[in-house]
């Protein structure tokens, strides 16, 4: 495997202003949805990002996709700074990076036949003649396991799992090298989840794709990822090769997630493992933002912010217990 970097994120932050007042609205604070995160994904690898609801996972996905502008920091995708792209260069970037989103009921236009849904990116980018595009759409549907004879049906005539397959077919249509998967299976039944994840892995192999997969469920990410980043309140608290993370989880939050993981709804179990609620991202705790819920909290944790430390090669953690 070549060690070519596909996505590199450096010090990325996204702060949303919080306004109050209807007529004379003024900014009363900021939500640090994403706060100074860094990671990189090599070509052909898959980085899984896990974290509870509201920790900034989707915001990260939007930034990498160039749907939103970062407050600070950089996203370099195959040598290009995503935030600086516009017009023609942004249009070209779209061919390289595609996405699949969480809710298969909202990610397909209900008024379009699935043939059109799958072929729209090809039409927009004028890839081939209309006959070729039509053929390509049928091939793509076949590839993801949808009978091409059903190409003239509308999305509501398919099940959730099938719709997600259609969404994947669309994402593949432009032959992208990177696919951002934001909670690709969390709206699906557990039995269907595995099928979709297997499909994704097959496709990754076949087209040598790079994935950034986002989930609140560690079990989902575990299947697919080569590397895992654990996010908490807008920050990455631990980043490691997948096998290493499972063997040797360091951050107390990661351990809690792992302890909660092999159940149907991890959010439920997590409450049992961890005390308290996720603090508001508008008013995060001082020092280590995890300290109010941390079982190993020390007095310094309340005041001192810490940086990521590399404990073993490739395994980073941001926790006072592991900084020298």
């Amino acid at each position, binding site marked *: 495997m070549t060690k070519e970097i596909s996505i590199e994120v450096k010090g990325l932050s996204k702060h949303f202003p919080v306004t109050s007042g209807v007529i004379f609205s003024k900014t009363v604070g900021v939500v640090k949805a994403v706060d100074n995160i860094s990671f990189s994904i090599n070509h052909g690898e898959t980085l899984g990002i896990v974290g509870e609801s509201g920790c900034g996972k989707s915001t990260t996905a*939007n930034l990498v*996709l160039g*749907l939103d502008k970062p407050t600070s920091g950089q996203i370099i995708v195959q040598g290009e700074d995503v935030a600086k792209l516009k017009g023609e260069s942004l*249009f070209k970037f*779209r*061919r390289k*990076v*595609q*996405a699949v*989103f*969480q*809710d298969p*009921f*909202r*990610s*397909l*236009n*209900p*008024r*379009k036949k699935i043939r059109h849904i799958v072929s*729209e*990116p090809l039409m*927009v*980018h004028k890839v081939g003649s209309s006959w070729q595009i039509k053929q390509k759409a049928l091939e793509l549907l076949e590839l993801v396991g949808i009978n091409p004879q059903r190409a003239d049906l509308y999305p509501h005539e398919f099940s959730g799992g099938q719709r997600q397959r259609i*969404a994947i077919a*669309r994402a593949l249509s*432009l032959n992208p090298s990177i696919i951002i998967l934001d909670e690709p299976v969390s709206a699906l039944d557990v039995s269907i989840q595995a099928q979709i994840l297997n499909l994704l892995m097959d496709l990754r192999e076949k087209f040598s794709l790079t994935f950034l997969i986002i989930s609140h469920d560690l079990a989902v990410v575990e299947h697919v990822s080569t590397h895992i980043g654990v996010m908490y309140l807008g920050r990455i608290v631990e980043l490691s090769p997948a096998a290493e993370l499972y063997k040797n989880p360091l951050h107390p939050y990661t351990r809690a997630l792992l302890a909660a993981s092999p159940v149907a709804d991890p959010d439920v179990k997590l409450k049992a493992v961890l005390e308290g609620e996720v603090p508001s991202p508008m008013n995060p705790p001082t020092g280590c933002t995890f300290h109010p819920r941390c079982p190993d909290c020390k007095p310094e944790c309340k005041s001192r912010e810490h940086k990521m430390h590399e404990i073993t090669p490739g395994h980073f953690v941001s926790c006072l217990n592991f900084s020298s």
Partner: protein
Amino acid sequence: MDTLEAEGSVEAKSRARNRIPYIGLGFISIFLFVVIFGQWVAPYDYDYWDMANITQPPVWLEGGSWEHILGTDPLGRDVLSRIIHGSRYSLAIALSCIAVYGTIGIILGLISGFLGGNVDMGIMRLCDLWMGLPPIITAILVVSVMGPSSLAIIVYIGLSGWPGYTRIVRGETMSLAQNDFIRLARVAGCSKFRIITSHIFPNIVNTLTILITLDIGGLIILTATLSFLGLGTQPPSPDWGLMMNEGRQYITYAWWLIVFPGVAIMFAVLGFNLVGDWLRDVLDPKQKLR
């Protein structure tokens, strides 16, 4: 939760489907039939003066005859024929008004809802301003500039009716824009124009169908009212409002001159409202509108 909601709406939908408004559809069918074939089914021309039979009562009253089923006016014009011919005026004026303000309203609503920010704010303030204009005074103003005519009515209503559409279309657009398929359209590289025309607009067509159907009834009344007040269609047109206006002075001894056009208006409006309500149940079971 989501599935529950979906099931509920499916149920509401099928219930609504089974309650087809035959009466409303019947009124609309008659209305449209008369609009299209009126020229051939009307016994007389709308401006034919039968001087031998002036102010003749309807057929079932003493002095009435089968020649003029709904009677005649003081010029000997056949009331039934005038009502039949008048249907075309009502519908044409109503549709012209909708075409003008619908186009303005929909385009501004799509732009406002999709672009957001300052553009949205500007358009919304313009809406507020526009809705603050006093209706009767502006109507009289337009008429005094253009002179009373059907065209003046179309210009007046066309230019004043759009803010309602802009608001509704803007709201729908904003909630649609939250959907992942819009985000994915951007990921695919669709232009703003393409997103608006091919992803948002097709998804508001249902809402627009309901709005337009419900509006036709109101517009028939409004245009008839303006004609009744003498601001709109001018004689000898068989506009229903104008007919009522002309019949007003004879109300004590020739009530049919004012009652029959009134009944025609009532049934046409009722038809469109019944069907509009039903469409709303079928197409929009969550009752987002009104």
